[in-house]
């Protein structure tokens, strides 16, 4: 396993989260790879520092969130909003493909994928 911590470990607002580890160069490099961003070597330290400031600021929430308060994932307290299983017309293929940068034989055409397996 790599020594790079997962993004969850640097997330400051998890249940019971108080202190968070400092964002390292390696964290930035890993996140940049996951986001497919080309970040130059000299930028790693700078972004690590900036992200650290951001995460520390957000972590202020942890100071007031008690352990018995669940992290919020929705602003509206609704549950069980369901749709009937009834087909409704969507877009025609022409409408769908009209918005595509490129199309071929009724399909969206995209560049080759970054040398990785699916």
């Amino acid at each position, binding site marked *: 396993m790599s020594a790079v911590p997962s993004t969850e470990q640097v997330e400051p607002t998890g249940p019971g989260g108080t202190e968070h580890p400092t964002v390292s160069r390696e964290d930035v490099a*890993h996140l940049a790879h996951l986001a497919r961003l080309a970040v130059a070597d000299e930028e790693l330290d700078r972004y690590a520092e900036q992200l650290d400031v951001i995460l520390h600021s957000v972590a202020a929430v942890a100071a007031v969130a008690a352990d018995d308060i669940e992290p919020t994932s929705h602003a509206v307290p609704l549950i069980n909003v369901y*749709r009937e*299983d009834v*087909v409704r017309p969507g877009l025609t293929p022409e409408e*769908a493909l009209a918005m595509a940068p490129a199309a071929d034989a*009724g399909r969206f055409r*995209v560049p*080759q994928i970054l*040398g990785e397996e*699916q």
Partner: protein
Amino acid sequence: MTTAELTPAEWAALDDVADFDEAIAAFDPVLGLEVHVELGTATKMFCSCATTFGAEPNTQVCPVCLALPGAMPVVNGTAVEYAIRIGLALNCSIAPWCRFARKNYFYPDMPKNFQTSQYDEPIAFDGYLDVPVGDEIVRVEIERAHMEEDTGKSTHIGGATGRIHGAEFSLLDYNRAGVPLVEIVSKPIVGTKASAPEVARAYVATLQDLVRSLGVSDVRMDQGSMRCDVNLSLTPAGNPVFGTRTETKNVNSLRSVERAARFEICRQASVLTAGGEIRQETRHFDELAGTTASGRVKETAEDYRYFPEPDLVPVAPSAQWVEQIRAALPELPWVRRERLQRDWGFTDLEMRDLTNARGVELVAQTVAAGAGAGDARSWWMSYLAQQANSAGVELSELAITPAQVAAVIGLVSSGSLTAALARKVVDGVLAGEGEPAEVVEKRGLAVVSDDSALQAAIDEALAAQPDVADKIRSGKVQAIGAIVGAVMKATRGQADAAKVRELTLKTIG
């Protein structure tokens, strides 16, 4: 499969692997099975697009499943009900409250750049499935069954193999993007030793029967509405610590599940015996060669940065709704089997063999089409089983329907066909020559029931073997076999032996 179809690389792959028996002697396999089931709802998981299989590309898409700006998903209530049905049938607990999560990744098969799935809050968890394997029952523990959506279909153009490596571009059809899926994840299955490949297959087959009986999916592995990933690791015999596992994808038939597990056991044993290490990776199963090939290394690829889906509200099925669904579950396959066994009067052994051959529903349908249970069982378990076996397919995959088998049985009981002729009629149906009656007609297979024609053949046979009649008269009745044989030969097997026997005895007087 002929060996000539193998490429040199595939040959090399086969040469590298250890003998299965040696592999099992040195290592204990640990299995984990992930099965995706596409639900048979009319619409997608989060939008009202149709889910019809095989539609023209991009004809079942809308702003939600194409991830156009501002489009908002809404959960399909029927899909939730189907997922709960599956969970209950697998003896799972149903979550009183759970959420969807975003699984972020960058493949274009989801235009959103994430797949909506469930992460640490699956709708169903901690269940089990009892799987008949040979004359034993293996209990497979179920870790979880969670809801998610299927991805679009990519066609890679320009690469030699149709896979991503070497492709110049990809074409995307999003008809399948957003189709509701339930992913059923087993806990590690240990202690199966040499039967691991068979257990893997039996588990998927049992699950397939179960899900089909629930009416929530057509579970067609050939069409991808049921798909299996085989996780497998080896641990030195007797060692309780699991080894590094591989995940083999693209396993599209029951037979392939068994072959993929078997191949991975042999391959990993070779690597480990030679002092190598197993990489944690995704592998692809090659149906033709029966081998697996390395895909991506999982370590970084699995960092999907899951987080709760902010566009969907939590799913909180009430206990009342869950109990309603439980009460309305159809008769599950094993309960049904017990009832059918009583109705049919089969012995435990007969029923077990039929179950293991996955012939119960076929016999049930044959009986429903008018055949006797004993006749139906005997056809499916002997002649048809032989045909399925030699073709390497399941009984249900044979090109004959239970109704056609019942029709053949009907022709035998009415005396129109002998057992031998009936097998030829079945051959004709399997060869695509039409309904049993048409095959009888086209192949001219009807029993010679014209008594005068039979009488002429008998007279001729008696004349040719004059001593036989004397033997029979003197009490050696078994000598009649020579006459029956001659008549059968003269009628090209199209006479009813019992009838020939009766007429011969009458002739001799």
